[in-house]
């Protein structure tokens, strides 16, 4: 705040700042370099130049990344989605139950084995979409805070996921289904969704309306935007992405478990916030969220690589989330 300004022109020039995403990218690179150095010191090997480790890292990021893409859009409208982890689990259960091989004992839908692969995929997506639609409709129709509406969905969807098989896991999924989670497929799906929604947010009416609603809901309404309908759309999209994440997660694990995606919603929100998405609304981009998710993934990967206790990993992650929000607050304060 107290920088000395001698030349007024210099100040105006300073205003044309680099996009905030770039500074987050530097943070990501900085963390990578730190792990690289520590790797050579303590483990005598490279952290970054190990393709296997990088693949695992990005794979782990993919599922949470899908949730984060959805919650980013929700947060831009000044909302929040706490239900994404639970919706993931419910979608995974429903999709997995329809994806089992032909000759397996089945907890639900006995005799419905060996279905073509698109049926479980569509079912998983549909479950997520319906959950999102319910979230959005509740918020738009009753005006209850998104925090409460999605908190309700979080508990309900988790309960449904458990009730569905009374807690039994669903395993022995068909090869064509597990192929969705094999190799680099999850990464491809994640990146494709990131590109699609990055473009949608920046260049389409949908995106512009999303930012406008987050910027000022009343002004958005006066400007001819059907705010309620648009909010329903945004939450539905977020739900569909959670459904997709459920499909990907169950395919990768080759099973459906009701405990899947536990507290993933918080990691997704953290990724968005670290990526510069403002909880005050109207600000944030998918690129930032993707980098934010990578930062979280790299922390996990790096700590495991260095053999640091899992509990300590949690502690550090918590600190990083708070630091990111402090940085964001500081950034927006300077903008006054």
């Amino acid at each position: 705040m107290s920088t000395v300004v001698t030349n007024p022109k210099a100040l105006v020039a300073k205003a044309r700042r680099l996009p905030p995403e770039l500074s987050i990218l530097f943070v990501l690179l900085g963390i990578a370099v730190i792990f690289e150095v520590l790797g050579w010191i303590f483990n005598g090997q490279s952290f970054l130049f190990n393709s296997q480790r990088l693949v695992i890292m990005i794979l782990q990021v993919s599922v949470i990344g899908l949730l984060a893409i959805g919650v980013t859009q929700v947060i831009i409208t000044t909302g929040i989605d706490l239900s994404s982890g639970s919706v993931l689990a419910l979608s995974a259960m429903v999709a997995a139950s329809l994806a089992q091989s032909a000759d397996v004992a089945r907890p639900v839908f006995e005799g419905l084995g060996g279905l073509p692969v698109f049926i479980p995929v569509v079912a998983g997506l549909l479950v997520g979409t319906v959950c999102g639609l319910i979230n959005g409709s509740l918020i738009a129709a009753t005006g209850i805070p998104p925090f409460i509406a999605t908190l309700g969905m979080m508990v309900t969807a988790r309960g449904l996921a458990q009730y569905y098989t009374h807690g039994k896991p669903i395993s022995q999924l068909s090869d064509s289904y597990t192929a969705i989670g094999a190799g680099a497929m999850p990464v491809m799906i994640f990146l494709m969704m990131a590109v699609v929604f990055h473009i949608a947010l920046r260049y389409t009416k949908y995106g512009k309306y999303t930012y406008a609603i987050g910027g000022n809901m009343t002004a958005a309404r006066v400007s001819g935007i059907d705010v309620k309908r648009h909010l329903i759309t945004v939450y539905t999209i977020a739900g569909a992405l959670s459904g997709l994440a459920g499909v990907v997660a169950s395919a990768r694990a080759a099973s459906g478990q009701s405990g899947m995606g536990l507290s993933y919603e918080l990691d997704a929100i953290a990724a968005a916030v670290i990526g510069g998405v403002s909880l005050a609304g109207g600000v944030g981009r998918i690129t930032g969220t993707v980098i934010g998710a990578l930062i979280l993934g790299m922390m996990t990967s790096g700590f495991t690589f260095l053999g640091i206790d899992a509990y300590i990993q949690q502690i550090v992650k918590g600190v990083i989330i708070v630091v990111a929000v402090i940085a964001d607050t500081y950034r927006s304060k300077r903008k006054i």
Partner: protein
Amino acid sequence: MSAVLKDQTSSTMPRAAAGTYLLEAEGIMKGFPGVIALAGVQLKLRPGTVHALMGENGAGKSTLMKIIAGIYQPDEGQIRVKGERVVLHSPLDALQKGIAMIHQELNLVPFTTIAENIWIGREPLNKLGFVDHAELFRRTRELFDRLHIDLDPEEQVQHLSIANRQMVEIAKAVSYDSDVLIMDEPTSAITEKEVEHLFAIIADLKAQGKGIVYITHKMVEVFNIADDISVFRDGHYITTKPASELDRDKLITLMVGRELTQMFPKTTVPLRDVVLDVRSLSRQGVFSGVSFQLRGGEILGFAGLMGAGRTEVAETIYGMYPASGGEIYVNGKRVEIKSPRQAIDAGLALLTEDRKASGLFLVLPVLENMEIASLPGFLGRLGFVRQRTVSEECEKLRQSLRVKTPSLYQIIENLSGGNQQKALIGRWLLTKPKVLILDEPTRGIDVGAKAEIYKLISELAADGVAIIMISSEMAEIIGMCDRVLVMHDGHVTGELKRDELTQEAILHLASD
């Protein structure tokens, strides 16, 4: 009344000797990203005086006040309180050094009592360390007695009118017993009666030797209460003069840096066909039986006191609230308007009364603020916005409206009020409206930008746009309108043609 007060105080008060200022700010510089708010300004406040700070919006008055109140820290420059150099790190810091500020935005906690609000953070405690409420209320009563404020200290703030909340803010600032009081547009939300009350309080404070820095847009007030006047322009210090050496015209010239030859450039244009025909429009419990016709090229004013129902009529026509009765015709065709979108599609546009609350997307760039209402008209395949076309249209409007901004990508929050308003007018012009409804189009905007907006309104009328102008400023209603409907208590009480427009005639219809 106030003129009398001023004479009394200036004759009884000892004039400050040179060098004994209550407050001196010198060489203050402050920059925000993209904007130089202050480029080396000064302010010297004598004890026992009211020092008015004048300038257009964006001149830097509020920024300097926030620096003096410790809210912002200056990039350069120094502040002295009673000759002693100080650095103010926070509002608390400023309070401890004897500087209190009455904020333009009200900062009270609604669900607590008046007394708790006033003494927040310095409540009297009993032996057990709990708040001593009896003492709290007693002190508040004492303060109110001294200031002749007739409010119950135990009342919750949420039940108070805006005007009474403002009085509580004033009492709170006085309660700190500071030497320097900063008042940023203290009269913007209070009625005539309370203004007199405030001026009496100010006279009393002056008599105690306190200094008051006073910011206002109202010329009449300045010459009523100010002893000294400092003028800022575009972040620069222009001059300081005793109020007695200035008059309204001289002051305006100093503020805008040029002569304002014609404030209201209303031209007579031929009226075209009836564009908007409203027939006995009603909204249950708010207004009823509002009928009028509006022709292309015509400027129709809506005058009346606050709460007369003018804004509500506009919002109902525009589809923000359902009407309980009546019909609307646009170009002779009956229209059903149930949402702002339908209103825009029917050729209506509404510049709302409260720029910040219902107009601006503060965190978004100028471009996004301008294009938002017209996007459905600029769509390509798959809902993609034809961005280059929209940006070009916005850029054209930015130039013709003379919106001062480094670029369309500047966050609109960084623009001055006048430029924000011009960008919002741009938003509506982009929708190519047949009827443009302007609700308080120049509220909180400086003189120079006002004149530009009036000119723009005249040009739009000349182009055949039908204009409804809702305004509480008599001067602009009289100066700009072809015809005026006056409302009182939800009814249209009369219609005045341009040659019948006088302040008296309007006031007569606007009150019981």
